[in-house]
């Protein structure tokens, strides 16, 4: 009995403390909002947003609602995170492997790369790319084409856009290819377990991935055209590119800075993962008669990935959160559009900051839950 009360008292006190703080804040907020004539509510989401966004993935103009502005801005955030994650993974894996190279020069260059980009604040890196490096690019009229059809200018990166005819047919062919590859892999695994035969899965997969979409071009009536960016003169000295897709400099600066910065952390995860596998594993695999490719694929990678993936996912999460620094260089992401412009216009500080935080929190918790599930799945099953 005595013990129970002893356990109860601190809990009750803590809860009371938390409730009191929240109560204090709520009452103050009530009073403050009454004084300023603001009412609490999410009705504003349906109102007309009446501001423009410089770069959007979906159609958006000032007449759309705040809710739509939120969706569009969220997509912009996700776009930056997606691109950043892809590039930082590629760079990170290369640098991480390079850090373990036998080659003295490569090993040290990789180490210096990591030390260099890791120890400069991300915000400064973003500023550097946006205000200093990308401003040194040529104007549209003097830009030289990269790879023949793309133009890197001070106003952004212009790439050809694709114009599809019967895109649905192509997409369904692609999906069919992927689904059939999955089935063939399952069948091949069963076949190997039953009869010991090995199918050339890799070549079959590649073949399917190429042949099925190709068939859709030949038979399905799919057509693909490229719209190239073309230089156009607006006035005496003002030129722009028309057609194609224009990637704004904000996006480029952000993706470059985010992927360079995060790739250093991914590289460290990769290095730790590969170093975490004991040499005995490799030697044992070799003594069983596996070839170097098989050793990497069947013995080293499955174990290394178990170490690499959880911290790397954490870095992806950090990258997603760090993408909110976009607000500092006016890339229309969630923070700038919603917690910036929309907040200024409506004055609904509590609701808007709350929604913004909740969005990021949801993304984080979702990825964390996924991670836990994955960890459970791949953890070593001991008897």
């Amino acid at each position, binding site marked *: 009995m005595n013990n129970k009360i002893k*356990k109860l008292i*601190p*809990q*009750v006190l*803590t*809860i009371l403390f*938390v409730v009191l703080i929240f109560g*204090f*804040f709520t009452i*103050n*907020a009530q*009073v*403050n*909002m009454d*004084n300023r004539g603001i009412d609490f509510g999410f009705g504003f989401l349906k109102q007309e947003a009446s501001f423009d966004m410089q770069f959007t993935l979906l159609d958006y103009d000032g007449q759309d609602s705040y809710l739509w502005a939120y969706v569009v801005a969220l997509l912009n955030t996700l776009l930056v995170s997606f691109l950043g994650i892809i590039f930082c993974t590629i760079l990170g894996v290369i640098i991480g492997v390079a850090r373990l*190279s*036998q*080659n*003295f*020069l*490569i090993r040290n*260059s990789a180490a210096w790369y990591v*030390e*260099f980009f*890791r*120890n*400069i*604040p*991300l*915000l*400064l*890196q973003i*500023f*550097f790319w946006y*205000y*200093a*490096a990308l*401003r*040194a690019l040529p104007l549209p009229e003097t830009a030289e084409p990269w790879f023949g059809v793309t133009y890197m200018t001070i106003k952004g990166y212009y790439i050809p856009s694709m114009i599809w005819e019967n895109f649905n047919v192509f997409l369904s062919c692609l999906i069919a290819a992927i689904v059939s590859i999955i089935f063939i892999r399952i069948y091949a695994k069963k076949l190997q377990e039953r009869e010991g035969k090995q199918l050339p899965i890799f070549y079959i997969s590649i073949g399917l991935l190429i042949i099925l979409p190709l068939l859709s071009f030949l038979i399905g009536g799919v057509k693909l055209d490229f719209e190239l960016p073309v230089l156009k003169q607006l006035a005496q000295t003002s030129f722009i590119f028309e057609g194609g897709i224009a990637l704004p400099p904000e996006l480029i600066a952000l993706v470059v800075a985010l992927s360079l910065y995060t790739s250093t952390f991914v590289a460290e995860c990769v290095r730790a993962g590969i170093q975490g596998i004991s040499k005995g594993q490799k030697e044992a695999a070799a003594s069983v008669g596996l070839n170097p490719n098989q050793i990497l694929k069947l013995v080293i990678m499955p174990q290394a990935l178990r170490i690499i993936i959880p911290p790397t996912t954490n870095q992806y999460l950090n990258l997603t*959160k*760090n993408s*909110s*620094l976009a*607000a*500092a260089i006016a890339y229309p992401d969630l*923070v700038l559009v919603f*917690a910036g412009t929309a*907040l200024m216009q409506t004055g609904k*500080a*509590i609701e808007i*900051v*709350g929604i*913004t*935080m909740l969005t*990021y*929190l949801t993304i*984080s*918790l979702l990825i*964390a839950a996924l991670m836990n599930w994955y960890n459970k799945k791949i953890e070593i099953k001991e008897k």
Partner: protein
Amino acid sequence: MKLSLTTLKTNNPMTNIYIGSLLFILSIFDVFIYSFLNLNITSFLPGNLTIFFPLIIGLIGLSFIRMEYTGIKFIDNLNKHINTTNFNALLTLLIIFTVLKAIPPALSWMILDANISGETKEACTGTGACWTYIKVWFKRFMYGMYPNELHWRINSAFILVIALGFVGYFFKENLKKYLALYYVIIYPIIAFLIIYYLISGGSFGLVWVETGAWGGLSLTFIVSFFCLIFCFPLGMILALGRRSNLPAIRYISICYIEFWRGVPLITVLFMSSVMFPMFLPEDFFMDKLVRVIIAITLFEAAYCAEVIRGGLQALPRGQYDAAKSLGMGYWKMHIFVILPQALKLVIPGIANTFLALVKDTPLIFVVGLAELAGMLALAKTNPKWLGFAMEGYIFAAIIFWIICYAMSKYSYNLERKYKTER
């Protein structure tokens, strides 16, 4: 004598080395001359071959060097470290060539063509960097808009605070038990009072300087220092809370930690600047800098808590059981047995958290506090000094890099030190 290109066999095994070294040195010489003196000695070759020529002869040279075991230590080291396979040789050459190509333009921009004399923009005439800009704005970058004649106050405050930080080292043996008390409670209070009275002023005959005028690198230090000393105790409490047996306390701690870890710092700063004033009583005013420091402290405390929790989890169960069997209560057990060991384990992790904290401080720029990044933005848009963004950001990057690199090396050393002791 047979002569074939793949296995070149002569009576003298050194022939391979001679040929290989000659080709290798020739390739480096070619690139060197081209990048430093802008002289293309292979211009007689057609088209793209000029570009790839040094690469090709370098590769052939390295493969000759690799062919035979010589017993010369230098060559063997070379083969072992930078020349193991053709692929490695290619990468080696690419790195050497890149460095050679990058040195001249970087050197001429940073030093040879740069200007540092003079006081105005007109002094910068060369094509290189304009360090005059940094020189003129240096005080602003360091102290923000703080009045020039009062800079001694910031300097002396910092010196005092740092000196007080080292006092712990000189504690007598009988005072050592109060060391933790000193660092966790007394030191932060004294440091706060020093910074408040010396930098803010307002009493003792010192002129009042409002926090809006603070800025530059000194503000970065002030913010990270306070967040650092406040977030540590808070993180400790949260870590203990998360490992508590009491469900209410545990769940509240978990909610707190997961919430702050799930949101980006920039939204936390927005919250502190636009949302938090709504939660305070009407006529209660809190300075923006204080709000920002509170926000960052709450944010970093969650990360700190997770690091400390790692240390608590790493302790063997026996420590808990032993302490309990001696009849120690919860607090006694943690203060005298668990925390001293756990905190020693997590020192490197904590150092990393602090490193992240220092790297995060430039973010306070988005709520209008002009620390180094903010001052750079201000200087960049000054009509008298347009067009020197590059110099400014490189300067800031160098400063931050030195600070962060020193910190990360220090934490690495700590990590090694404590690893060997266990």
